[in-house]
């Protein structure tokens, strides 16, 4: 498996440069190739479950070279990325016919996937930055893909804030290198553990939290998300909301805070505060929206709050040396919610795309009564809404239940109350969607609306089935032990996590170089 690690980056990267060659005439060939690539990545990701390994790029030793690390957390994220990208790519096969330059779209899509895959595999902090920039640049271009007034404006806004975030992160990396004389995460973490956190490193940590917080759109930094996500084409909205903010924001933040710097009570509380703020503010702002995709975008902010809350709760419990089982449970809730959210939010964005393609509008006030006209879209949307609102037995219920149990166990009763309250707000906003899009009277101008056919339906049904059965990931012990528990263990181990990797690889190459 270790030898296959570069394929996660190489396949989409090569595809990104091959696809534009096909141009206008070979559009269908390019689409088929792109779909093959995403499905191959999905198969590779499924094969990587439960495995771990270190790949030394160019066979340089761990101290001087770049390494790719596969562990529980990476393979969980890889799985989420490839599920969402496979579904979004299938959906785009038909949806993107309305745009010109489809081959360029496919190329940017692949570039984004390559960036995200590289980011979750990277064991080198500067390499992480490079992949983050690859994914971000592709997403800036994709947000402005329609080249209309709103899209360009949103893209500019997104790009300015994204560039500030990237500069902050690079500044933080420079400070880390200046203080620890290494860029490898394992070596950096070892140096920080032995020397403690000096002011330079503390400033670097602050820069990382702001930078990754901007990328994750946590509430004080969320201004770009509600513009950028609705402006992109629907499959790209699904990718952005579903997975990009999580890999670029939450995953990178968790990796840096837990595995490189080590958690402290203050950082844990900071994460909990950001999470709670995002949950509440995102939910309130979402309820007032009348644009379908804008509502979904605000709800993404609210849901990303849940993930950060779970991880922050775990950080507090680890730092306070409370019962390790409590910390594991909180982090499990956060990570499971991350996976769940990537599935149902991308499904919701795909259904919004399907509705928009058939009716030509996404204003809730102009829609209505589509239940009879678009039965499959309706069913998919209802399943996803029930899931995000936490209706049992759909996936969202289980992750929220775990979060509530974790909060109550650790005696944070007010957090449990907030989780339940925001869940109610979520239910209200999705009832609003159901009421205004699928129920009620069919407006005059929508009498001729037809359901979309072909790959768009397949993509939606695939994700809807996942929504129904994702709960099994925690209920079935063997699935949980293989997929979720290793990911949780990576974070609960903290800086100690790197020790075996360092030991195995340092001695093997000692004396060969330097």
């Amino acid at each position, binding site marked *: 498996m270790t030898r296959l690690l570069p394929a996660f980056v190489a396949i989409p990267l090569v595809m990104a440069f091959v696809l534009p060659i096909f141009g206008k005439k070979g559009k269908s060939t390019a689409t088929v190739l792109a779909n093959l690539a995403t499905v191959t990545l999905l198969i590779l990701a499924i094969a990587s479950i439960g495995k771990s390994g270190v790949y030394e790029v160019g066979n340089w030793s761990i101290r001087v070279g770049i390494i790719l690390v596969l562990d529980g957390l990476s393979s969980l994220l890889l799985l989420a990325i490839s599920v969402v990208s496979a579904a979004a790519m299938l959906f785009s096969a038909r949806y993107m016919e309305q745009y010109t330059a489809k081959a360029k779209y496919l190329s940017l899509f692949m570039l984004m996937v390559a960036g995200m895959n590289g980011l979750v595999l990277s064991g080198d902090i*500067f390499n992480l930055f*490079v992949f983050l*920039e690859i994914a971000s*640049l592709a997403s*800036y*271009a994709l947000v*402005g893909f329609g*080249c*209309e*007034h*709103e899209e*360009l*404006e*949103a*893209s*500019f*806004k997104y*790009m*300015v804030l994204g*560039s*500030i975030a*990237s*500069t902050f992160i*690079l*500044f933080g*990396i*420079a400070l880390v*290198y*200046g203080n620890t004389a290494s*860029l490898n995460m394992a070596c950096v973490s070892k140096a920080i553990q032995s020397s403690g956190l000096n002011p330079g490193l503390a400033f670097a940590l602050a820069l990382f939290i702001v930078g990754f917080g901007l990328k994750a759109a946590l509430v004080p930094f969320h201004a770009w998300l*509600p*513009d950028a996500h609705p*402006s992109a084409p629907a499959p790209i909205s699904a990718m952005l909301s579903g997975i990009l903010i999580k890999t670029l924001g939450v995953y990178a933040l968790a990796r840096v805070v837990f595995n490189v710097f080590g958690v402290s009570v203050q950082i844990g509380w900071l994460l909990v505060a950001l999470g709670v703020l995002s949950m509440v503010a995102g939910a309130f*702002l979402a309820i007032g*929206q009348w644009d379908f995709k*804008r509502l979904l975008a605000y709800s993404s902010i609210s849901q990303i709050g849940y993930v950060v809350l779970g991880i922050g709760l775990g950080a507090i419990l680890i730092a306070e040396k409370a019962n390790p089982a409590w910390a594991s449970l909180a982090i499990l809730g956060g990570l499971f919610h991350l996976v769940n959210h990537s599935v149902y939010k991308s499904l919701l964005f795909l259904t919004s795309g399907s509705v928009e393609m058939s009716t030509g509008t996404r204003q809730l006030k102009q829609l209505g009564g589509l239940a009879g006209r678009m039965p499959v879209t309706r069913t998919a949307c209802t399943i996803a809404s029930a899931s995000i609102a936490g209706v049992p037995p759909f996936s969202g219920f289980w992750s929220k239940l775990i979060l509530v149990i974790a909060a109550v166990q650790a005696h944070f009763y007010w957090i449990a109350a907030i989780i339940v309250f925001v869940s109610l707000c979520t239910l209200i906003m999705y009832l609003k969607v159901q009421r205004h899009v699928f129920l009620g009277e069919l407006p005059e101008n929508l009498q001729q609306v037809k359901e979309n056919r072909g790959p768009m339906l397949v993509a939606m049904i695939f994700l809807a089935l996942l929504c129904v059965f994702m709960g099994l990931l925690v209920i079935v012990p063997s699935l949980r032990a293989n997929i979720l528990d290793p990911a949780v263990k990576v974070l609960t181990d903290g800086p100690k996590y790197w020790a075996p990797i360092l030991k195995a690889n340092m001695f093997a190459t000692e004396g060969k170089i330097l």
Partner: protein
Amino acid sequence: MPYALCFLLFTIGLYCVVVKKNLVKIVIGLAVMEYAVNLFLIMLGWRTGGTAPIIDKTYIEPGTTGKILDSFINTSVDPLPQALVLTSIVISLGSLALIISICIRIYEKYGTFDITEIRRLRG
């Protein structure tokens, strides 16, 4: 002291991005921020009176196979930040090209560079 000036340059860039109303000036602010970080990286590896980090035969200890003289290690500048800066310059070139082309398209659509007039999105 040079680090403080470098940080000042960074804050000037950030100020420019936050306060200025003109799209192109915002982009210039972003570029200034990136230069400040690049400068910081270069200064990390800088050593007054240091030599270029290029090894030739005169720097290898006589009689050993490839052991480098301590005098070289103690005088050469750190090459790694230079490699990082090279990468980061390439990345900022790419993002600068993209953001400038978005600015041009915005100017075509709205006929202005003033962000107070480019306000279709809100809420």
